[in-house]
């Protein structure tokens, strides 16, 4: 099941159940998404809490919070009509569905979450350091780079872990834009994730078959991954909260 040369051919004459492509695909997409969400999320949180007046920042923050309430089908739908179409046009690809498109869509989904958690860290860090650092004659940007960013580093890592965990389990949006081919994922190639695989195939499976058992095994792998990632994220958060009080 976990060998690199076993393919995913669940319904052929001699069924093969290679899970490795789906596992790597899941990790790959989430990693792209988290990196994108972190870049825009941390930048956005700094911009909102550092350069904008408080009341305007509050309005924008609650607006971005609304994005978190958009269901994942709509993200998938917009991803399909905007991102995938864009890739097809620019990249001269046949369909435009690829791992990168899924990563972008998932990254946008994780963005409100990252911004919310990072904003909190930035606000806390500002309270602790800003006045004293400014009093020492540092410029606003130096305070930002030299004191605030290093002090929220652990908060960012915790947020990244939690976001990564969310990304691993995302089903609909990813499934609609990734192309769903059980091959090893490439940046501009199609791929497959475990949740998408489950959602696609569980409807056509016979009860009690090997196929269903393998799907359960795949999700067990996913759960173990989630347990590790979210567990680490939680521990980090807990320790941070303890440090702050």
């Amino acid at each position: 099941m976990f060998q690199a040369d076993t393919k995913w051919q669940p319904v052929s004459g001699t069924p093969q159940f290679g899970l490795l492509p789906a596992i790597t695909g899941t990790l790959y997409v989430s990693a792209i998404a988290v990196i994108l969400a972190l870049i825009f999320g941390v930048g956005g949180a700094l911009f909102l809490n550092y350069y904008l007046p408080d009341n305007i920042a509050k309005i924008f923050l609650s607006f971005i919070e609304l994005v978190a309430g958009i269901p994942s089908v709509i993200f998938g739908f917009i991803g399909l009509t905007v991102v995938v179409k864009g890739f097809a046009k620019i990249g001269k690809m046949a369909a435009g569905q690829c791992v990168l498109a899924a990563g972008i869509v998932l990254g946008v989904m994780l963005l409100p979450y990252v911004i919310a958690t990072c904003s909190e860290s930035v606000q806390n860090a500002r309270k602790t350091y800003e006045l004293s650092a400014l009093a020492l004659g540092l410029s606003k940007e130096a305070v930002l780079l030299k004191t605030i960013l290093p002090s929220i580093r652990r908060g960012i890592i915790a947020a990244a872990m939690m976001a990564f965990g969310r990304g691993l389990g995302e089903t609909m949006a990813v499934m609609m834009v990734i192309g769903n081919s059980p091959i090893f994922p490439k940046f501009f190639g199609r791929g497959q994730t475990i949740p998408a695989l489950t959602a696609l195939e569980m409807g056509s499976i016979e009860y009690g078959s090997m196929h269903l058992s393998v799907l359960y095994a795949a999700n067990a792998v996913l759960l173990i991954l989630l347990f590790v990632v979210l567990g680490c994220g939680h521990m980090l958060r807990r320790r941070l909260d303890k440090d702050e009080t």
Partner: protein
Amino acid sequence: MRHRVGKYLTRLACFLLGVSAIGIALFLFVYVFWKGRGVISLSFLLDSPSGVPVGTDGGIFPALIGSIFLGGLSALMGGLLGIGAALYLAFYSDRKWLSVLVNTAILGLSGIPSILFGLVGYTLLIYKLGIGRSLLCASISVAAMIVPFVSIRAKKIFEEKRRGYMEESLGLGLSKEYTLRKLILPHCASELLGTVALGMAYGMGAVAPILYTGAVMQADIPRKLTDPFMSLPYHLYMLVNNGFSLEYAFGTAFVLMAFLLLVQLLCKGVTSLQERKESR
């Protein structure tokens, strides 16, 4: 000189990233509402889907009602269970191991991907128990998904209120149950309701748990719990995935998003009103 360049670069980077983050958020709403506005009409909202293939003509009325039924039922089940668990954790957790267990279970449940609720609901309810694709199975799957959502938030609400009331009330010789019933629950009622409503909105938007447990492409308004039903997000997914009608997909997305947005804004409005009242 180098310092000055670095300073402006930092500022520029922050501005660019921040503006694009806000821009992306704005784009999502504007795009769907702009593209979907052409399809929206009274007949789109109040007719049943028709045409060949289904969904290319007519309206989405059964899907709208089906989603509301699903949301209501799962909010009822998930909300009660979630608030119950939160009550236990906030007020009755004198046995250490049990409260740790409940807490871990809720945290664990909150990390489980939505598709797993669908997978387990499908194999357990439909194959093992033989209920058949129905509103009931879908609601149970969705309810399991919103239990941690409600529970974590409800626990926070209870813990805030506990500080204000519990010790004073116990000090006056009132029982714990009396305090809960007469003081804490009435005072939390609107906040709890808001939390459950948010959970409902979250559950109504999910496709993965209802994918094979109850949602279908065409059905009437469900009359029994064991009827299959139509749901807005599922309808949208089928329209897009099978390439039936992009125009109607935008219309469906418009309605779904407007509905969920309304619920969220209502909840936020009520909460901020409450806060203002309390701070006065």
